[in-house]
């Protein structure tokens, strides 16, 4: 599970220093790529990373430091992912492509069995998340998987903390309902991890 907040190194920005793309990329590209993998559920995040930093390049001159750099980057990353997912959904509709596959790999586990269990749990979570609305999906990923504090999620979504809490309750309800419907007997890491759809 993620550590709970954007790394301190990202949060603290010395605004006296000029932020240029190279510096932002050098310092934050690895973290953004990890977020991208988390948000997409896929290992290959290169194209999305490029897209995120193209947006950063465009908007960096107008970044006034009202938000923390990390929150700002997270918000951009999230929007890029949502836009890409919309495009992918349209492509799937237009060209009847296969449903999205999730191949997100985590850090090497202690044993092959643990590794398999992690993979199956990841598959189940992302399969259910895939059926939720974009906002619910993003909220759950940020809160449940990235373990971001509510205040930070509120900053990213430009919502009040109360609204985030209410939206989270609803998103969790929907997730629970879908999960119980699709995986009535599934326990993570066991052999029931196949989607019944």
């Amino acid at each position, binding site marked *: *599970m*993620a550590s709970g907040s954007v790394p301190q190194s990202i949060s603290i920005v010395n605004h006296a220093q000029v932020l240029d*793309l190279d510096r932002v*990329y*050098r310092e934050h*590209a*690895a*973290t953004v*790529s*990890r977020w991208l*993998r*988390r948000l997409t559920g896929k*290992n290959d*995040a*290169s194209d999305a*990373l*490029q897209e995120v*930093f*193209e947006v950063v*390049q465009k908007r960096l001159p107008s970044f006034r430091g009202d938000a923390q750099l990390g929150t700002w980057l997270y918000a951009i990353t999230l929007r890029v992912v949502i836009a890409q997912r919309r495009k992918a959904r349209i492509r799937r509709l237009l060209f009847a492509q296969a449903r999205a596959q999730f191949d*997100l*790999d*985590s*850090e090497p*586990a202690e044993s092959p069995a643990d590794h398999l*269990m*992690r993979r*199956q*749990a*990841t598959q*189940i*979570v992302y399969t259910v998340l895939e059926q939720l609305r974009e906002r619910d999906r993003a909220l759950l990923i940020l*809160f*449940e*998987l990235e*373990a971001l504090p*509510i205040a930070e999620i509120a900053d990213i979504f430009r919502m009040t*903390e*109360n609204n*985030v*809490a*209410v*939206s*989270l*309750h*609803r998103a*969790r*309800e929907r*997730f*629970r309902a879908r*999960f119980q419907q699709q995986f009535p007997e*599934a*326990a*993570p*890491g066991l052999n029931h991890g196949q989607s019944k759809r």
Partner: protein
Amino acid sequence: MAKASADPPRRWSEESDAGDDARLTELFRAVGDPEPLPSAALARVHERLESKRRTSQLSRRMRELVMAGSMLLLGSSLALAGWGASEWLIGRSQRAPQPAPETAAGKAARTLNGHRGPKGKQPAHAPPEPEASAPVSSSESDAPVAPNAANAKAKASSERHDQLLAPADSSQLAAEALALERALVKLRREHDAQGALAVLDESQPLFSKGSLALEAQVARVDALLVLGRRAEALAILEQLPLAQLGRGGELELVRAELRAVGDCGRALKDFDVLVTRALAAPLMERALYGRAACELSVGDRTHAEQDLKQYLARFPEGRFADRVRVQLGKASGKAQQRLVQRRSVALRL
């Protein structure tokens, strides 16, 4: 749906194992944390961003040039129109019959007729008479227009027009940029290095001291390298102030690699500088291997071995990795086989 509360919920992964959502708790605890992209992939993305940035800068510059060109054209047209009108008026005043010296009687008659005189007989559709641009004294008003003054005015107007039509700095820059762009299109899009060189040769005499002369030289180096004319490329690179140019050390690396062909001692100094810089991974890979190769060729086996080991540690899947393993005597049969295969493919090509 249950009524949503405004209190923040507890994360499933943090709930107790025996709670209502025990399965979800177990599930979310089991989901692993993704790793960031490997540094090679990050470097590739950075390179793509850089090249896109360069392209967009060039297109922005082109847009500015087009804008400047349009403004220049508009200004020239307006000046030309003004000049044409003044020429027409001057010509007309010269062609018009000069009034005969007036007699005292005629003057008196004109006074009696209320100054109308010949003006009253003007045809209805005649072009309106222009107003004099400068007040004319009473003595001059009676005298015919001096042809010399008209010629001087026309000449001044013509000179002004010539100045406006003369190629300004911006149009020079536009032409230079267009020539360079043509060369780059040939080189990068059409993969026609010979054609690119021809365009550069054609434009060099015109823009040898232009604002984009350095960029043109770099394009020439690229084209020469594609054609395998390394000595010529090196000769140009030796003359260029590489630190002022972009491409983050790439050109300096190319120069070091080219120098290494004939003078490894000199190239080693370049590589030493390069490996201490924050180069992109693919460039660092080349710099590290280049230094090791040069150290081997000058007989410095200790440092070469250190560099080769460092290379393998940083780029285990790098393009020179098989070769490095062979050099370090660590090559597996498979790696050696791959190397032999690559060599035979290269020979066939």
